[in-house]
């Protein structure tokens, strides 16, 4: 156990280092982008004087490195600062959006992870059967459709032709819980179709990979049923790669859903970040990047801990 604690501590230290470097890269990136927030917000109506006045008002006339260290100091003291564009507290702005993003991710994960694992185990069990092939073709087709297109098809089927779900996930923090669940079902379903194939194929492959191992042959020779061999003997040992791919997909559900947010008009963090990048609202971009990067670091850590916990050999090293 102490070994895990040590690893966690080490990974946290590395995680902070990663966050620091990410913040530097994002900062430099935004600085390198042509145009700044004053020009982007004033848009076509920007004139040299108004832009200059706007810059002074926002404090953009201060040298870049000083602005960065100001930001860093604030961040270390738990102050994310305010949005340059509309002076809103970033913690409040992002808190709301991140809550929404997590809500959608959890809903999508609650559908897709059990589904993918079940489909994967069944595909391994009945490998090379018609079922195996059919599941393969369907899931592969669904991931090869661009996300927005999957969304349009689902909207056409489930809200235009058969009006079961609303076509936009228009929620606010005042929306009651179950209504929220109902409204995000369609985006969650879209995301499910997008991620399920990857997880399902990895589950199938990881299990099949073990089937040639001597202990599986042994189990087969003992006359155990195929289902029992796979679920009781193969699956536990295949968990590590499966957990890994599940975690990658969970991270995707949180970090990579901008397009689905746009199509379903869902007020999540991705949309906020894209908006802020295009308007060069640096503090908001930084804060969102920190949250995304932090999520990624934590999920990775979780995957490693789970892999160790599911593998006695790693848990009790010689």
């Amino acid at each position: 156990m102490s070994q895990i604690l040590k690893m966690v501590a080490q990974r946290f230290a590395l995680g902070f280092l990663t966050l620091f470097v990410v913040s530097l890269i994002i900062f430099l990136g935004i600085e390198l982008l042509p145009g700044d927030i004053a020009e982007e917000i004033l848009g076509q109506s920007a004139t040299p004087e108004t832009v200059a006045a706007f810059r002074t008002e926002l404090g953009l006339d201060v040298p870049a490195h000083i602005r960065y260290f100001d930001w860093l100091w604030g961040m270390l003291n738990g102050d994310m600062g305010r949005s340059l564009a509309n002076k809103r507290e970033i913690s409040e702005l992002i808190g709301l959006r991140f809550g929404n993003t997590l809500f959608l991710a959890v809903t999508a994960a609650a559908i897709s992870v059990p589904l993918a694992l079940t489909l994967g185990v069944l595909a391994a069990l009945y490998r090379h059967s018609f079922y195996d092939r059919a599941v393969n073709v369907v899931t592969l087709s669904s991931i090869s459709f661009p996300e927005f297109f999957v969304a349009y098809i689902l909207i056409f089927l489930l809200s235009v032709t058969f009006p079961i779900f609303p076509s936009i996930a228009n929620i606010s923090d005042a929306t009651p819980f179950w209504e929220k669940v109902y409204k995000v079902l369609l985006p969650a379903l879209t995301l499910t179709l997008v991620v399920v194939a990857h997880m399902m194929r990895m589950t199938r492959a990881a299990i099949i990979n073990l089937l040639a191992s001597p202990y599986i042959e042994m189990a087969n020779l003992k006359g155990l049923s195929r289902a029992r061999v796979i679920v009781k003997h193969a699956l536990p040992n295949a968990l590590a790669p499966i957990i890994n791919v599940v975690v990658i997909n969970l991270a995707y559900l949180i970090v990579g859903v901008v397009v689905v947010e746009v199509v379903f008009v869902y007020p999540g963090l991705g949309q906020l970040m894209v908006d802020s990048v295009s308007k060069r609202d640096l503090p908001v971009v930084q804060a969102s990047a920190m949250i995304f990067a932090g999520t990624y670091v934590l999920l990775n850590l979780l995957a490693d801990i789970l892999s160790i916990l599911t593998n006695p050999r790693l848990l009790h090293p010689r």
Partner: protein
Amino acid sequence: MKSNNKFTSPLNADVSRRGFLGGTAALGVTAASSSALMGKKAYAAKKGGHLRAGIAHGSTTDSLDPATWENGYTLSLDYTLFNHIGEVDHTGAVQPELAESWEASPDARTWSFKLRKDVEFHNGKTLEASDIIASIEYHMGEDTKSAAKSLLAQVKSMKADGKNEVVIELEAGNADFPYVISDYHIAIKPSKDGKIDPMSGIGTGPYVLENYEPGVRMTATKNKNYFKSDRGHFDSVELITIIDLAARQNALTTGEIDMMDRADLKTVHLLKRQKGVNVMETVGYKHYTMPMRTDTAPFDNNELRLALKHSVDREELVKKILRGHGVVGNDHPISPTNQYHAEGLAQRMYDPDKAKFHFKKAGLDGTTIQLSAADAAFPGAVDAAVLYKEHAAKAGIDIEVVREPNDGYWSNVWMKKGWCACYWGGRPTEDWMFTTAYAAGADWNDTFWKHDRFNELLLAARAELDSDKRRTMYYEMQEIVSNDGGVVVPMFANYVFAASDKILPSEQMAGNWELDGCKFAERWSFA
């Protein structure tokens, strides 16, 4: 706004003529169910209901600060919560709104605005001259970032004459000043110690701000003390940002929203067939342009400019890019809806031979001309550029379409690259449009064009009160821009938007902006 017929401007004749011309502006409802609206039943707005409008703009970086308003969402928010000194009506004429009436001195240099006495802000404060002055001053001065700054540069001084009159003196006469001072940026907010709070949502408008989440939605409830008793019919209004086109149309057809702006021109014929949907269209001032930098080679050569102007098939652009929802342009920015649109000016046609002739004269044989475009300029801009390339090829002119990123288009491409795609929302008056983008040295003179005769006429026409003389001058100016200017104006685009048939729009809609001049929340109701 029937109470304002006392309107005592020396420009009365102008305004009524504008009214006559502009009457064709609103094409009104074009869907099948429109007969219900046009029937004999008297037009009767129903009170109450919750209006949900899907708007194609809106970003998380928007705010309530009027200095930065620039998109269709902030405009709608503006007209839902705030009022202005005047408002543009369905004929294209400016009518007093917070003002009761206005008067100009004979040289059009001094304007006095009499204010209404019965107007209350959402916080209970009564409207006074000081609020008007503070709201205007916010956009003036050295350190303002406001987009209306250059517009107000002509204001020399402002003073209150009692609590209910504002007198504004201009640097030079401007017969169109009531239009200028009613610009959407100049929303009237309550002042405290001579300053307004730009971030506050308190106005005098038909609805009171309840909650605003930039880039997501705004909700507002009826202003019970609204000074226009016959306007603002809904109980509450919700403006939802829906940027994705398909999402917006789906939301309308599935009843998630009651109305939307920016219908997809590619599929508008399919949208019209949907049950319970009205598609509407207004002709405005919006035009798509392709400005060339006349201060840099090769576009400093007018022969090349003429060659390019002759080498585009405008009819096809209107047909393919606008799907017929617009009219061809004549290489000047004055819309057919504008008062002094030069009808007599011959329409420039697609003529590869003439283009070849001018191109040869320019001595640029064999050179490739680059045209920068991105859909940020206008929807279909890249397609339009590709079509342009195909058309020009027939005249032996080789155009290379440079696709630019949408992100940062206005800061990196527009007014930077030699020739690019661009759009103008247009202006309700000739002077405003020309002053903004064609006067020598103007901030947004995107062709960097200088023409002495043109600039002379501009000043003369601005202070001229005789409308016949103005017309002659504006006609000549349009001709000069068309034949010498650096801009290709292939088309004027209509505003195409849609609402559910449960919504009763105005009988005649204003065309100054989309959605009845963005005043739908005030002017429309449930049927």
